[in-house]
């Protein structure tokens, strides 16, 4: 896509904004619609659009496949670990009250923030992994054959 100057310039401008918006949706999810699922997808979009315009090699330099792999697992572990912390606090699994025993409401704020962060990490990883998996498949037949 070397000759698509407009696309390349616009993409460069957009990527930063998309990432910023993803963080907003992620961390403002407590007070307004949003959260890990949506933020993860938005975050992944930034990488996918970069990959579409500049090529798979370029985006994989920034976000290597092995990192995507680890992110998938890491997000799930963050989620599970949040719950396990409550077990050690002598409470039910995923009882966020453990993060602030005297003000359970504050604990719930912390808990949902961490859990949603885990969700965000995994969803970003999954969406990018799906894109990589399909895009990095070497085509064995020409486009006309399809």
């Amino acid at each position, binding site marked *: 896509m070397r000759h698509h100057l407009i696309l390349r310039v616009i993409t460069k401008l957009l990527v930063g904004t998309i990432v910023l918006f993803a963080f907003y949706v992620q961390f403002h999810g407590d*007070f*307004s619609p949003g959260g890990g699922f949506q933020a993860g997808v938005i975050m992944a979009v930034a990488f996918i659009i970069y990959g579409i315009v500049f090529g798979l090699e370029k985006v994989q330099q920034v976000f290597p496949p092995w990192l995507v792999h680890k992110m998938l697992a890491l997000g799930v572990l963050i989620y599970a670990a949040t719950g396990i912390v409550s077990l050690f606090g002598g409470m039910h699994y995923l009882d966020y009250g453990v993060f602030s025993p005297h003000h359970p409401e504050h604990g719930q704020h912390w808990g949902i923030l961490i859990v949603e962060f885990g969700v965000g990490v995994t969803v970003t990883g999954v969406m990018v992994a799906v894109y990589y*998996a*399909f895009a990095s*498949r070497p085509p*064995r037949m020409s486009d006309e054959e399809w």
Partner: protein
Amino acid sequence: MDSSTTWEFFVGHVSYWLFIVLMMTGLYIVVAKGNFVKKIVGLNIFQTSVFMLYISIGKVDGGTAPIYPVDLNIDPDVVYSNPLPHVLILTAIVVGIATTALGLALIVRIREEFGSIEEDDIVEIEQGIARDENERYRNATGNRA
């Protein structure tokens, strides 16, 4: 039932009618189409119909978006829609995405191995394999079996 109540019955349940139409459309595509990608499209339409069913359940007459104000100053007169079905369907959407991605990934592999994504071709190829296997089996066992 006079005509006006019939009309109300029809319009009042419009999202359910659409649910049924979508569901049947999706199911028909899954069953009737031989192309594997089209089957996945059908499956998606079928699942989307369920999302619609759930979201229709969540709607409360005159209800607004179920988001409390930041200061938690809740006006008792405000009616909120039921947020639970939306949450459930968020999960179902994620499941749907995972299914679609996995289905498409399988199709890519099928295309690589069989050279086609048409059911007819693949059935033919598989029958060919089965014929060869049986041929080999008959030769190996003689006429005993």
